[in-house]
């Protein structure tokens, strides 16, 4: 995403460049020629003093102004103030040197410190602005207006004003402002902003659509089903906006640390100036060391880079349709090592589908006969058989059969003297068809023609294609996987075997799932973190109870969005491993930043106390750390490979 500089930033940038150029000119001339020496005499130091002072004021007048203003407000440990003390102190020392006739030096340092301080500030501003932009791109899903039909005319109103049951018009190119059902027209919708899914979805009359999607082709009329505050887009925006309020342990640590860091460093600086100064009498030398302390007294690198990392993590995840409700969940999820799955709708598709036809060499015949029997029925089993037949062997089916339904058994279809049976084992027994009972788990439909068995069809809840890959990926990360289901043991063990899930518990009622999760929670170690993955239907209590609740297919499911900590907007398990990778990378970068920034700061403090470094190195170190930490934080938002193209 491109992020241009704002007017204010351009102005500051230009000022920094001009001051830097001026500084370089003065500095080179001074070092090569020796400005003080060139003038010579007792007041030789005045020339470099005024030149450097000009540069100093040009680059730092706003810092000086803010420092003065904040002192008036009683803010002593303000970083502007500390910078001023450090730099003005350096100036004073240089003047002292000049007056006492020593070599004039130190003016350049004062300017440089302020210059680099400004560069660092500028960079921080740029980085945060950029990162904010990337999240506000997500905020772009907020619709501005709704075109509602009132008294036969289209009126443009705020989405908040539209009531349930009203009809709105959505023209091509517009955002869908409210959740509703299409009543007229057809089009394709772009859900990229919501789910990260780049392929458009086609909709027509009767389809339910969600707010925040973009209408691509045709004009559609939509009957509003939810008020704006209740609509998908509001829920998502609320979630994203609140994400930053749930602070992680790392962030709280840094805030706490910052509170004590600055006063401590300032106190040390004071002691360092006074005590050794009084003892040795070398006031100038020790004051100089103390001033170097002040240069590194601002904890900004840490304070900014940690939330920035989390923010970038949340932003990166949202681009792939994974909503994480707060930085604390990133922290916990990075550590999550027990994954509990709900079976139906999570690891499996939660629908019926033909999984096997036996014997295989008579597949077409079996499916065709079954389809003939089941056509016109709306039972899920009938639908799944018809769907499979039509997708494999085409649409046409003879319609001259007379079909009779045998309740609880199956269907009999007859034409002339031909008779087809399609149903369960009891149906076969009732009509004396010889068959071998199939003991596969799932629903078995037997087909017989004229009293003789043709074969059987096995119908099962389909496994999601990516379930086994997810389970093995989690196992490779060292996580424990558990599956919970209300289905019987036979079905559960089969799914467990196919997905490779480590442990399963079958025949659980919804309430049993909660107690099972609590059981696992109480037996887990202190550093373990339990993550429950469900489809958001009927499992809100479990989602709330677990350390991290992940809900699948968040679009359109309010309960899931509310109860879960991480919402997968797309019904796609890939999001879990992706979120895990993002969370891990974020936490790594956060740790790196904390350790690295602290180490450098402490090193600079020690070295300046010993008088080994000078202010140059201190300011380079300080600004450099801030810049590096921010760059590192921005790495969180880089591209992540998804398994699917």
């Amino acid at each position: 995403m491109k992020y241009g500089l704002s007017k204010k930033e351009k102005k500051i940038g230009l000022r920094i460049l001009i001051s830097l150029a001026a500084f370089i000119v003065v500095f080179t001339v001074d070092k090569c020629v020796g400005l003080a020496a060139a003038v010579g005499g007792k007041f030789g130091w005045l020339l470099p003093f005024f030149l450097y002072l000009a540069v100093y004021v040009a680059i730092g007048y706003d810092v000086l102004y803010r420092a003065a203003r904040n002192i008036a407000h009683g803010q002593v440990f303000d970083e502007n103030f500390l910078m001023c003390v450090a730099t003005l102190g350096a100036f004073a020392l240089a003047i002292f040197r000049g007056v006492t006739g020593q070599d004039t030096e130190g003016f350049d340092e004062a300017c440089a410190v302020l210059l680099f301080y400004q560069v660092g500030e500028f960079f921080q501003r740029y980085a945060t602005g950029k990162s904010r932009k990337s999240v506000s791109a997500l905020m772009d899903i907020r619709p501005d207006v709704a075109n509602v039909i009132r008294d036969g005319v289209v009126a443009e109103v705020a989405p908040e004003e539209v009531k349930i049951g009203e009809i709105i018009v959505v023209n091509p190119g517009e955002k869908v402002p409210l959740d509703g059902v299409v009543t007229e027209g057809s089009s394709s919708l772009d859900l990229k902003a919501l789910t990260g899914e780049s392929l458009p979805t086609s909709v027509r009359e009767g389809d339910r659509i969600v707010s925040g999607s973009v209408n691509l082709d045709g004009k559609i009329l939509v009957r509003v089903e939810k008020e704006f505050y209740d609509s998908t887009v509001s829920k998502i925006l609320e979630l994203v906006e609140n994400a930053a309020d749930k602070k992680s342990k790392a962030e709280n640590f840094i805030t706490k640390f910052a509170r004590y860091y600055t006063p401590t460093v300032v106190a040390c600086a004071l002691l360092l100036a006074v005590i050794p100064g009084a003892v040795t009498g070398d006031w100038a030398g020790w004051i100089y060391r103390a001033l170097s302390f002040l240069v590194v007294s601002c904890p900004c690198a840490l304070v900014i880079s940690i939330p920035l990392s989390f923010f970038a993590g949340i932003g990166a995840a949202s681009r792939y349709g994974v909503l994480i409700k707060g930085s604390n969940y990133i922290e916990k999820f990075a550590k999550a090592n027990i994954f509990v799955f709900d079976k139906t709708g999570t690891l499996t598709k939660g629908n019926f589908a033909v999984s096997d036809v036996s014997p295989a060499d008579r597949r077409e015949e079996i499916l065709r006969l079954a389809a003939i029997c089941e056509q016109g029925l709306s039972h899920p089993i009938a639908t799944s058989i018809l769907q499979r037949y039509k997708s494999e062997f085409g649409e046409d089916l003879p319609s001259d059969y007379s079909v009779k339904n045998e309740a609880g058994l199956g269907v009999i279809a007859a034409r002339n003297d031909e008779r087809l049976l399609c149903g369960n084992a009891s149906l076969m027994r009732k009509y004396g068809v010889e068959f071998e009972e199939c003991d596969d788990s799932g629903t078995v439909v037997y087909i017989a023609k004229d009293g003789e068995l043709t074969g059987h069809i096995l119908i099962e809840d389909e496994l999601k294609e990516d379930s086994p890959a997810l389970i093995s990926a989690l196992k490779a990360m060292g996580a424990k996987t558990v599956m919970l289901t209300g289905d019987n043991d036979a079905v559960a063990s089969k799914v467990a075997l196919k997905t490779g899930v480590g442990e399963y518990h079958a025949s659980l009622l919804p309430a049993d799932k909660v107690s099972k999760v609590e059981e696992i929670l109480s037996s887990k170690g202190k550093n373990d973190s339990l993550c429950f993955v469900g489809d958001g239907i009927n499992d809100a209590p479990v989602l709330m109870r677990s350390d991290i609740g992940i809900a699948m297919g968040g679009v359109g499911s309010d309960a899931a969005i509310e109860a879960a900590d991480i919402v997968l907007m797309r019904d796609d398990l890939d999001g879990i491993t992706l979120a895990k990778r993002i969370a891990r990378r974020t936490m790594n970068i956060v740790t790196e930043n904390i350790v690295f920034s602290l180490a450098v700061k402490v090193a600079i403090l020690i070295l300046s106390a010993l008088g080994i470094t000078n202010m140059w190195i201190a300011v380079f170190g300080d600004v450099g750390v801030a810049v590096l930490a921010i760059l590192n934080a921005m790495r969180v938002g880089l591209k992540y490979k998804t398994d699917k193209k």
Partner: protein
Amino acid sequence: MKKVFKLEDLDCANCAAKMQNAIEKLDGVKSVTISFMTQRMTLEADEERFDDVLKAAQRAIKKIEPDCTIAR
């Protein structure tokens, strides 16, 4: 009562943390979080005194960063 406000011209991350500390100590404040990244403040305070608390919060913010204002 809990309300969310946008903070305009919040320029430094450390200041945001300082503001949060200052506002937390104000009388009548139950909880407050200031997010530098989203530039938002979530303030929870006694309902009947909310306006006063908000005013005090604004004063505390001004003290730390004079340009920063609570958008209402």
